[in-house]
């Protein structure tokens, strides 16, 4: 028997996110809005689409003025929306070929989402909110409770487990949302302006959580308008009119996130 042993280490491991020639447009004819367009195609003159790779463990901040297409990009990355054209490979799998059933599995297992407007479910306790993704994953009740409590403790809200959204402050609600996003231990955390509605103290708390998640190897993509927030990222993308015009690396992919690092140095 002959074994072929492949000792070659891939130069680049498969990126968590790989998008190619991705466009998203709304409307028809003259009223068409290209929310994501990329540079103009020299041959056709139309939009060539956005291309982007994000490595495992990276911490990417997406910046840009209002209406530049940040949320549009994020929703496609989170499999909440489908692109008009182009390909999106998540962990090497082409998401465009998945059916609704498989997409809901992807959203449940691979992605954690944090929204600017918290998006907690009304009239539901913090514990139940955090248990929800586990329930959809089919985790048993006792196990679910244990893991949800652990996630709530991580965000420092263990003693608020029985509170409903209308009994929590904005910062606390966002921390519940973070706990909900991390409870399934997804490889990819997507956050659309997670600190947009928070004061500076709550912002610090939420960012510390996200930094911690990245430090443990999670890939994070976060949208923000604030330079303070963007400083936490290892890489900063800048969008203008549906195009990536700027891509700056602030720290290496395989190191700790810059702020966590500085904090350690100071200590």
């Amino acid at each position: 028997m002959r074994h072929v042993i492949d000792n070659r280490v891939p130069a680049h491991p498969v990126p968590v996110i790989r998008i190619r020639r991705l466009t998203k447009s709304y409307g028809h004819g003259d009223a068409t809005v290209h929310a994501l367009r990329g540079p103009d195609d020299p041959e056709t003159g139309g939009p060539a689409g956005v291309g982007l790779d994000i490595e495992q463990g990276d911490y990417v901040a997406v910046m840009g003025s209002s209406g530049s297409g940040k949320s549009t990009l994020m929703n496609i990355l989170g499999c909440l929306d489908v692109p008009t054209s182009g390909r999106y490979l998540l962990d090497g799998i082409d998401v465009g070929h998945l059916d609704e059933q498989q997409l809901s599995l992807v959203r449940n297992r691979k992605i954690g989402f944090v929204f600017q407007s918290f998006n907690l479910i009304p009239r539901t306790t913090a514990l139940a909110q955090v248990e929800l993704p586990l329930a959809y994953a089919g985790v048993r009740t006792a196990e679910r409770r244990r893991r949800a409590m652990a996630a709530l403790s991580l965000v420092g809200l263990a003693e608020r487990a029985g509170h409903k959204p209308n009994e929590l402050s904005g910062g606390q609600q966002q921390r519940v949302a973070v706990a909900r996003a991390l409870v399934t231990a997804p490889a990819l955390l997507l956050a659309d302006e997670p600190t947009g509605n928070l004061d500076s103290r709550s912002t610090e708390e939420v960012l510390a959580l996200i930094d911690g998640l990245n430090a443990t190897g999670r890939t994070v993509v976060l949208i923000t308008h604030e330079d303070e927030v963007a400083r936490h990222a290892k890489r900063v993308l800048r969008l203008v009119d549906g195009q990536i015009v700027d891509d700056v690396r602030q720290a290496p992919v395989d190191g700790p996130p810059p702020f966590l690092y500085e904090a350690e140095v100071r200590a």
Partner: protein
Amino acid sequence: MILWQTLRFAVGGLAANKVRSALTMLGVLIGVASVILLLAVGNGSSQAVKDSITSLGTNSLTVSAGSAAGGSRATSSVKKLTVADAKALASDGDSSAIKSVAPVVTTSGTALYGNISYSPGSIVGTYPAYFETANQKVAHGEYFTDDDVLGSRKVAVLGATTAKQLFDTEDPVGKKIVLGGTPFTVVGVLQAKGGSGFTDPDDVVIAPLPTVQNAFTGFGPVNQILVQAASADTTTAAQAEITRVLLGTHAIADPSKADFRITNQASLLTARESTTKTFTVLLGAVAAISLLVGGIGITNIMLVTVTERTREIGIRKALGAPRAVILGQFLTESTLLSVIGAGLGVAAGLIGSHFSIVGIKPVVIPESVLGAFGIAVAIGLFFGSYPANRAASLRPIDALRHE
């Protein structure tokens, strides 16, 4: 476990809008209760007709004077029915269709017992064959006999109501009552038949024909001749036989000019029974419509709920809720609405059927209870599936952007 979770979410969803849920359930409740109750009323009235058919006596035919074609003919030409006619029918040798014949005179008067005076609904003079033909059975004492008729004896059989009025708890048999100035000995009391119409069939005094004629009407014509056919199958043959014999005794050649009428009570009531069936079907249709309206109420409320909770659906989908879970949640909610509504409706219908409605005692049809409940639940599923499906097939981003 997932089922329990879904049920808890559904109850929570309904509890979030208590008044709205209660009103929707009320729609289903009214639908189910009206199906059960209206069908019970229809059933009760046809039951009453059926009972009066059996109490009337099967196979009985009534011959009365008057033209069959209605009142257009001059009454002067109408020959009254006589005892002779009855005798001709009874002695008609070659008829196997006719079993027995009883001429009947009916009159009214006052009965006295001691110092108690009472006017029975009717005083009937007839032959003993009447008892079997009219399905009158003696509960206590005896019938009067052919000998009593031949001897014009002053004996009487009392209906249950009359006996109660005159004698209360006393035993009437052997006692003497005075009818129209003539003393009668009571020989028997009839079984109570129970009334279904306006007249009480138990409020009656039955005595031998010549005795009543002697005391009240005189020996003229009789009011009716009651004929019992040999069996239900021979009523038509008996009817033909009666026509033939009476045309002979009345010397009429043309059957269309007959001066008597034969009515078959049982068939008359069968016709009435089919009318009540139509009535039941109509009531059922009205009830079914109200059930349908209840179902549309569920659809309406579920559509509102879905619209209201579109954002929530979006969040759940973003967290990875599969389509089936969302579908299940809203279907459970709508089914819960219809199950609770239908359950309360069954209770309301059953309670309501204990009261008599417009003089009819409702008789619940067990199938209608199961049917109404089942249909209501099916309606909940069916009408809930449209909004639930709409919720489940929303794209997450569209649901999240909804305001």
